[in-house]
């Protein structure tokens, strides 16, 4: 137990000293493994893990979904989504911010990355909100918060990675994200409502659209609907495995980008290269985390934790709440993916032993990551927004996002208290694959 805590402390020290997290995990994981099992075994373990993860077919779902997201981000599909959402709810108070959130949710259904969702939506939604006199605070924060829906509404990079490391069915995870996604939209819109109730000037109402305009705008999103239906719908219907759906989705997204004339050779090369770099970066973190997890599995930490829970006969719900609280706190300062990869090997056996559903826990993990993405001081979505919108000051963005963080925490509690919200849809679908 003590040596494991020393390992975690060393890891955090290296990481906060700015050593790339992947390498910090490799160093500590390999050293820990060597001290418990011998240097020779540790060296072999590192090479085998690296090679194994590098050529794992299951993992090819990751680059393909990343590629799909980067294609749709360039294809300009966010514009139609925003227009359609605006046609229906733009005339409400704060309606533009709500349209942004709804459009983010729509975009999330074809893109598995929160950062890409926030980035593409900021180009479309921010100028519109400014034109109508929205405050910077509400405009930027609603995009940052809406963007997090990218990883909750399938496809989702985080769900894929959680599914692979815990051997949980990715299709079921994808199905479990849908209803919580709708709940998220509702709660984020309530947060917008609260902001404009406090300060009506922050988000004035837009013009009401006629029904003919609404129907026309709705027709504009056929591309998104088709892509979702074929790729994710195919996974839901049990026609495709996650990897197959990702392959179809990436190619479909490529076709859309191509026929919308969004692709020059240069843009195509940029998209491919960008996706390749992101993949390489993610895999290094994944390999580091696997090496670290191999070490943790040889320590007594998972068993000790279980013993602790049994000794005090803690209620499973209390354990889950404690884990979520820890994540929310860690998530303010840590990069989210590494936080999940580091801690899931420790907590997951506990969740299973307590008889809790791994799919449901996966959704909770995604939601805490979402909170981490928009909670200051370290939130990736906030960084993305402040680099794309240099005119919005960071403190403004930090203050603006607080109501949305609160809405997300409320959602986390609701989802933790009512597992059925997550588990209903996967239970009625027949999903293929293991």
């Amino acid at each position, binding site marked *: 137990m003590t040596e494991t805590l020393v390992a975690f402390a060393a890891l955090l020290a290296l*990481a*906060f*000293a*700015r*050593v*790339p*997290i*992947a*390498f910090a995990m*490799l*160093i500590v994981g390999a050293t820990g493994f060597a001290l418990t099992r011998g240097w020779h075994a540790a*060296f*072999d373990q*590192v*090479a*085998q893990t*690296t*090679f194994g993860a*590098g*050529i*794992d*077919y299951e*993992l*090819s779902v990751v*680059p*393909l979904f990343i*590629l799909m997201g980067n294609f749709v981000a360039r294809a300009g599909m966010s514009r139609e989504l925003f227009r359609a959402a605006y046609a229906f709810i733009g005339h409400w108070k704060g309606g533009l911010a709500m349209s942004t959130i709804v459009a983010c949710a729509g975009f999330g259904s074809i893109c598995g990355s929160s950062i890409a969702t926030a980035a593409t939506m900021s180009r479309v939604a921010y100028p519109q909100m400014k034109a109508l006199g929205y405050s910077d605070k509400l405009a930027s924060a609603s995009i940052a918060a809406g963007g997090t829906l990218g990883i909750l509404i399938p496809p989702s990079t985080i769900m894929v990675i959680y599914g692979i490391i815990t051997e949980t069915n990715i299709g079921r995870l994808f199905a479990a994200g849908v209803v919580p996604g709708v709940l998220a939209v509702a709660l984020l819109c309530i947060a917008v409502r609260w902001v404009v109730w406090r300060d009506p000037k922050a988000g004035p109402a837009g013009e009401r659209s006629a029904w003919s305009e609404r129907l026309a705008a709705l027709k504009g999103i056929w591309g998104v609907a088709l892509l979702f239906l074929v790729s994710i719908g195919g996974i839901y219907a049990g*026609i*495709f495995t996650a*990897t*197959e759906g*990702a*392959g*179809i989705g*990436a*190619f479909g997204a*490529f076709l859309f980008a191509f026929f919308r004339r969004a692709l020059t050779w240069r843009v195509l*090369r940029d998209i*491919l*290269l960008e*996706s*390749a*770099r992101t*993949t*390489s*970066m993610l*895999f*290094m*973190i994944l390999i580091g985390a696997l090496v670290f997890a191999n070490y943790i599995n040889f320590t007594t930490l998972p068993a000790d934790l279980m013993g602790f829970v049994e000794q005090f006969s803690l209620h499973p719900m209390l354990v889950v709440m404690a884990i979520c609280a820890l994540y929310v706190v860690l998530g303010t*300062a*840590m*990069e989210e*993916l*590494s936080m999940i990869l580091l801690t899931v090997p420790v907590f997951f056996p506990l969740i299973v032993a307590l008889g809790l559903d791994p799919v449901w826990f996966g959704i909770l993990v995604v939601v805490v990551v979402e909170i981490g993405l928009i909670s200051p*001081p*370290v939130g990736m979505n906030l960084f993305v927004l402040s680099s794309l919108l240099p005119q919005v000051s960071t403190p403004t963005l930090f203050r603006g996002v607080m109501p949305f963080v609160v809405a997300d925490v409320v959602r986390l509690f609701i989802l933790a208290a009512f597992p059925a919200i997550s588990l209903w849809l996967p239970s009625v679908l027949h999903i293929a694959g293991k």
Partner: protein
Amino acid sequence: MLGTIAALDLAAMMLLTFFDVSGRKLFTAPIYGAYEVTEFMMGVLIFSALPLVTARENHVSIDVLDPYVPAALGRWQRVVVNLLSSVVLAFLGYRLWVLSASHLRTHEVTMTLHIPHGPFTFAFAVLALAAALAAFVVAAAHLRRARGRDPA
């Protein structure tokens, strides 16, 4: 050059998966061995982009403490961090090299297409070593103050 390899490799992976899946579902004619080819394409994708990510200092790291680190110390921090990264990558490359030697010796091949493992592990080893070199160059650049705090 590596960028072109990575980009072409990913494009090929996308096309292969698409045609394999549509072939299987629509015409019950999957591409023979596509599964294994995809696996090795993935490896090539990850390792060919690794030197690029490393050279750009794009690896995910925690930079919350940056505002509190004095500029003079920050430079040395960058030097040390990149040297350490270089050592880790070199170690990874070395172990993959050893693994490739054993793959080559035992003529390990895949089940369906009999793709030999050895040349690929060897390529991964070389690319990891290239990434180690990239990290070393970055460290040297920081030492010579040839690189700012926020790289491109």
